């Protein structure tokens, strides 16, 4: 499913002519596992109040989320070419009031964990069993609100909250270690009081196993090691594809590579 999402990401960005391919590709397997293996959701009833919640804090990777939602049946894949265009359901960054299945508006980096913390507190408050998942980038952990919210999430013992970090090691301006000075993530989240696990972010069995690990009395942090641009040879490890649109030739190559992976 991760590769089917990838193929749709490339198609969406190619046909609409705008978007962030590489950060979407790195998140594809994580989002695939969430929507197709882990989360309890109902595409026919996107506002079902007992549904599990997902917050895509790295909102610029929304082509991955939109592809997962379309493949899950929330809306038609025919919307793909309208991405980022006037009057579209598919906004440049996720809009919870415009796109069925989007649980929280996002795109301004660093805010998703705090929103998810609120959603998880709400579940406790209302004695509901739904779980809240939030996917952040690694670069956006430079924003202080993450750490404010981390303290609150631990204080409230949010064992219904899971933070997944798409740890692809790159942010817009380069390596996260160099640009943001963001290092020692497992130690940091463990020190804050999260149950902290690491997984290969492109190995669905590892991701699902980590997400299903019990974490009574504390929130869970899964640091998913990923490759920016994963699945398209010329985009992997190439930060030039943080934002960009493949030309006709590149599109053909990318789709061919991804079709091969899907058929494996």
């Amino acid at each position, binding site marked *: 499913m991760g590769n089917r999402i990838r193929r749709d990401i490339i198609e969406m960005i190619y046909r609409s002519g705008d978007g962030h391919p590489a950060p979407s590709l790195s998140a594809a397997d994580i989002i695939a596992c969430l929507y197709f293996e882990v989360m309890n959701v109902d595409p026919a009833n996107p506002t079902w109040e007992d549904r599990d919640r997902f917050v895509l804090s790295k909102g610029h990777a929304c082509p991955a989320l939109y592809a997962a939602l379309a493949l899950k049946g929330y809306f038609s894949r025919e919307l793909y070419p309208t991405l980022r265009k006037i009057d579209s359901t598919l906004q440049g960054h996720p*809009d919870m009031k415009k796109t069925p299945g989007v649980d929280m508006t996002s795109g301004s980096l660093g805010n998703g964990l705090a929103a998810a913390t609120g959603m998880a507190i709400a*579940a406790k408050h209302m004695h509901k069993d739904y779980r809240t998942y939030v996917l952040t980038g690694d670069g956006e952990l430079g924003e202080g609100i993450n750490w404010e919210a981390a*303290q609150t999430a631990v204080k409230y013992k949010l064992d219904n909250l899971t933070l997944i970090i798409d740890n692809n090691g790159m942010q817009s301006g380069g390596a996260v270690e160099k640009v943001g000075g963001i290092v020692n993530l497992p130690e940091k989240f463990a020190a804050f009081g999260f149950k902290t696990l690491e997984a290969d972010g492109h190995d669905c069995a590892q991701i699902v196993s980590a997400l299903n690990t019990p974490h009574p009395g504390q929130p869970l942090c899964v640091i998913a090691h990923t490759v920016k641009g994963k699945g398209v040879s010329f985009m992997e490890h190439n930060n030039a594809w943080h934002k960009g649109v493949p030309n006709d030739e590149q599109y053909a190559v990318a789709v061919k590579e991804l079709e091969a992976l899907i058929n494996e």
Partner: protein
Amino acid sequence: MNEVKSTRVAFVNALEELFRQDERVVMVSADSVAVFRAGELQKKYPDRTIEAGIAEGSAVMIAAGLASAGLKPYVCAYAGFLTMRALEQMRTFVAYPRLDVKFFGANAGMCAGEREGVTHQFFEDLGIMRSVPGFTVFAPSDADDTFDMVKRAYDTKGPVYCRIGSGRDPIVGQDRLLRSYGDDAVIIGCGAPLKDACEAADALKDGGVNATVISLNVIKPLDEGLLMPYISRAGKVITVEDHNVFGGLGSAVCEIAGKRVTRLGLNDVYPESGTADELKHKYRIDKQAIIEAVNKA
């Protein structure tokens, strides 16, 4: 003359009524329980306060998450830490998705910060919040008005920002028309300086100048229907507010008035520590300044 009543206590009393009335109502605090005099309320309703700690941005985001799940959060913090530090969260994650979150900012105005000094005197909140699409902006006249505005916020769809004061807030009254001596001048104000405006109107009357004093507690949207007849008839239009003259009530009135308005407020400066009376006098939002403005306009 110097009767005061706390807008903060009024807020908590109204919130308690809302707690009783609707179990979805919760308070979100950025270590604001003491500031908002909510200690007793928290003891009575221990599950109804979500405490984010000294972290306004996170507090607003948590409120957005709570509201997205169907709760009705009332976010309480100092006016400036809320509207300046957490402004983006208020805009992008509450107003843009039209979530039902209410915000209450304490220490709003130079006089509410008083001797704390500029770091705790917040006189830009109305202008900041007025410019954010989707926000309704309240500035209650006094404590009793605050009590009503907390409930009005509940009845108002979508995000509301409401400024409140120091806890030593002058009693102004809740009438929209506080004085109606005549059309020589109309003095339009909000919050604590309305008390000075009334005293000024009384003194001006003794000198043969008949003024009207209008109290506004909703800064956005402005009640044009109420204001325009007075503005049209009045010889002079004066606004007075404990806020920068740029962006607040005075600016809002100018946007609709189509005539010259004398705006009394902070003249785009940073004030200083002092008692409320000293500050009002030095920064010219007191009775004497209002009288002079009417005479000079």
